C-alpha cells in the first residue's frame, strides 16, 4: 500500500502520453521498494539509468526531486535531510501536474511557517520533532490511531517535559519538609502529581485546538494534527486524573488530594479560558505553578506550614520573569490568536512585573532561615543567581527587546532548578532542630 504522496504520483501518470507507460510497472516497483527499503539515491539512480530511454521527463524529475536537496547553490546529489519539504511541490494542484512536464517548479518556502523567527526561538523544546512534523504536515493522513505512535502522542498531549518539571518541584517541596523521608509517600506524591499534571495539560490542549493551529509554537500538537480524536484526549485525561487524584487523596493525604484537584481546576477552568479574556490569566497561572511544591510539602507533613507557602512563593515569583520574557517575542501570534497577555496589552506592566518578582526572589530567599526552612547560608549562596536574574530582568525592563527577553527566559530555565538545589543543600537539619528543641525544653525544666 503506497503512502498518500505516492498515490498522487500514480494518479498523475494517467495524464501522461502513452509511450511513457512502458516503464510504468517497473517504476511502481521501484517506488514501492524505495519507500519500503529506503534505497540510497545512488543505487536508485543506477537502476533507473537502465531504463533511461523509456522514462518520461516528468517522472524522472519528480523522482530526482525526491532525492535531491535544493540549496541556494543549485541541486546537490546527496540526499540530505531536507530543509524544505519536497513533497510540498506535489501539493494539491491537479491541473498543474501536467504543466510540470515542461518545467521544474521552483521550490518556494511555505507561507508563514518555518521561516518565522518566532517559531525558531520559541520552539526550543522540540525542534527535531517539529521538522519531522512539518514534512508530514503536507500530506493527507488517515485518521486512525497508530498504536505504535501512542506513547509519543500521549507524551505530547500531556506535555511530558513540563510535567516532569512540575513533578520535580513537588519532589523538592517534599524533600524540603522537616520530617523523616518516607519513600512510599514520596513516590505516591510524585506519581499523583505527575498524573494530575498530565490531566490538566491534556484538557488544556483539548480546549485550545483552533488557537493552537494558528500559533507557530503549538501547531504540531496531537489534536491539531488529528492524530487522536477529542474524545480520546478527554478519555486519556480522565484516565490520568481520576487515578492521580485518588492516589493523592487515599495514598498520601486528603489535603494533597484536594490541592491536586484544585490545581487541575484552576488550570483547565480558570487559566485556559482567562487567557482570552483578561491579563489576570498570568497571575492565575503563577498560582497553578506554585501549588505543586506546596503539594509536595503537605504530602510529607500533612499540613499547610509557612515553609510550604514559602516554597510556593518561590515558584509564584519565578513564573513572572519566566513567562513574561517568553511571551515578549510571541506578541504577534498572541495578538492574532486573540490571547490577552500582558506583553501585548500592557507591555510596560509586563516588564515591571518581571523585574519586581525577580527582585522579590532575593527577599524570599532571605525568608528561608526566618521560617526555619533553610540555614542562614541559603540567602548568601543563592544571592549570585538571584542577583543575576534580577540584573537580566532589569535590562529587560530598560531595553525591552528580543535579545534581552530571550536572555531572561533562558536564565529562568536554569535558575529555578539551581535555586531548589541550593535550598535542598541548605536545608535546616532536623537533628539541629531537635537539639535546639531539647535544649530549650531542658532549660525550661531546669527553671
Amino acid at each position: 500500500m503506497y503512502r498518500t504522496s505516492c498515490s498522487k504520483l500514480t494518479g498523475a501518470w494517467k495524464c501522461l502520453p502513452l509511450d511513457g507507460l512502458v516503464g510504468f510497472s517497473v517504476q511502481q516497483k521501484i517506488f514501492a521498494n524505495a519507500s519500503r527499503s529506503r534505497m540510497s539515491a545512488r543505487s536508485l539512480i543506477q537502476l533507473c539509468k537502465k531504463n533511461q530511454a523509456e522514462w518520461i521527463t516528468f517522472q524522472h524529475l519528480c523522482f530526482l526531486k525526491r532525492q535531491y536537496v535544493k540549496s541556494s547553490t543549485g541541486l546537490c546529489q546527496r540526499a540530505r535531510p531536507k530543509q524544505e519539504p519536497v513533497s510540498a511541490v506535489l501539493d494539491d494542484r491537479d491541473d498543474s501536474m501536467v504543466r510540470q512536464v515542461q518545467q521544474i517548479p521552483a521550490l518556494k518556502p511555505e507561507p508563514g511557517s518555518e521561516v518565522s523567527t518566532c517559531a525558531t526561538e520559541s520552539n526550543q523544546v522540540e525542534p527535531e520533532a517539529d521538522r519531522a512534523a512539518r514534512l508530514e504536515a503536507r500530506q493527507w493522513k488517515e485518521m486512525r490511531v497508530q498504536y505504535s505512535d501512542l506513547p509519543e502522542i500521549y507524551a505530547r498531549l500531556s506535555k511530558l517535559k513540563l510535567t516532569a518539571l512540575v513533578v520535580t518541584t513537588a519532589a523538592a517541596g517534599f524533600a524540603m519538609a522537616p520530617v523523616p523521608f518516607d519513600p512510599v509517600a514520596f513516590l505516591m506524591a510524585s506519581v499523583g502529581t505527575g498524573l494530575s499534571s498530565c490531566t490538566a495539560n491534556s484538557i488544556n490542549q483539548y480546549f485550545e485546538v483552533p488557537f493552537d493551529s494558528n500559533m507557530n509554537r503549538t501547531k504540531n500538537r496531537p489534536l491539531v494534527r488529528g492524530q487522536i480524536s477529542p474524545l480520546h484526549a478527554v478519555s486519556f485525561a480522565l484516565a490520568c486524573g481520576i487515578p492521580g487524584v485518588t492516589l493523592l487523596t487515599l495514598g498520601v493525604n486528603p489535603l494533597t488530594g484536594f490541592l491536586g484537584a484544585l490545581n487541575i481546576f484552576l488550570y483547565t477552568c480558570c487559566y485556559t479560558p482567562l487567557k482570552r479574556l483578561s491579563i489576570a490569566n498570568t497571575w492565575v497561572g503563577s498560582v497553578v505553578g506554585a501549588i505543586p511544591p506546596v503539594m509536595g510539602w503537605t504530602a510529607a507533613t500533612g499540613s499547610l506550614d509557612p515553609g510550604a507557602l514559602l516554597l510556593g512563593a518561590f515558584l509564584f515569583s519565578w513564573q513572572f520573569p519566566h513567562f513574561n520574557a517568553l511571551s515578549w517575542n510571541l506578541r504577534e501570534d498572541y495578538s492574532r490568536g486573540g490571547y490577552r497577555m500582558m506583553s501585548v496589552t500592557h507591555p510596560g506592566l509586563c516588564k515591571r512585573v518581571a523585574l519586581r518578582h525577580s527582585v522579590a526572589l532575593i527577599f524570599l530567599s532571605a525568608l528561608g532561615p526566618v521560617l526555619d526552612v533553610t540555614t542562614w547560608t541559603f540567602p548568601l549562596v543563592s544571592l549570585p543567581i538571584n542577583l543575576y536574574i534580577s540584573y537580566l530582568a532589569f535590562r529587560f525592563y530598560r531595553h525591552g527587546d528580543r535579545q534581552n527577553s530571550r536572555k531572561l527566559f533562558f536564565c529562568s530555565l536554569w535558575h529555578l532548578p539551581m535555586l531548589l538545589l541550593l535550598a535542598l543543600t541548605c536545608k535546616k537539619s532536623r537533628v539541629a532542630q531537635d537539639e535546639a528543641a531539647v535544649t530549650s525544653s531542658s532549660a525550661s525544666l531546669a527553671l
Partner: protein
Amino acid sequence: MMNVVTARFLKFRSLRPCYTNINFSLRSPCRGHRESTSQAPKHAKQAGRSGFSPAASSIYDWIGPPDRLSNLRLIIYHIPENETPLERELRHLRQETEDWNHEFWTNQNFTFNKEKGEYIQSQLSAKGLSERDDDGRKRTLSSEEMAVFYKHFLDKNITRHANYNRKWYRRNFTITFLMARVTLHNMWRTLTGQTRGTVREKGKTM
C-alpha cells in the same frame, strides 16, 4: 485582490466535493466519502480546495494539511453504510463546526494581515519612508512600533473573540459528548450482537 481570493476560497469550501456513491441524490450533500462496493466513488468535479480523494476502501476519516488561510485542517469524513442517525448528527455537527471555524479564522487572519499592512504603511508614510528600502527589501517596523498595533487589534476585537470563545467551547463539548454517545451506542450494539454493514469498534474509530 485578497478579497476575491478569500471569497473564492470560502465559496469553494462550501461546495466541497461529496464522495458519496450512487445514492448521491438521496443523501444530504455534505462532505464525506463512502466505501466503494463495485466502482470507484463518484465525486463532483474538483472545484474545492482539496484535490484529494481517499482510497475507496478506506473506512476512516482523512485529515489534510493546514489550510493556507485559516491554518485549520480539512477533514473528509467517512460515511459508513447504514449510518445511524446519531452518527449522521455527529458528522453534520463536526462538519458545520469545521466550516464555522474555518470562516472565523480565515476572516481573523485576513483582517489581521490586512490591518497590519495598513498600519505599517501608515507608519512608514508618517516617517516619510517608502515601502521598500534601497536594496528593494520591504521595510519593517521595530517590535515596539508593531506592539502598538497588536494591542490595538486585541482591544478592538475583544467582544468578537469572547463570543467566539463561548461558542467554540459549547460546540466542542457538544461534539465530544455526541462522540461519546456514538461510541457507547456502537459498543452496545457490538456487545448485544447487532451488526450492520460495517462494524465500527472503538479501537477503529477516531
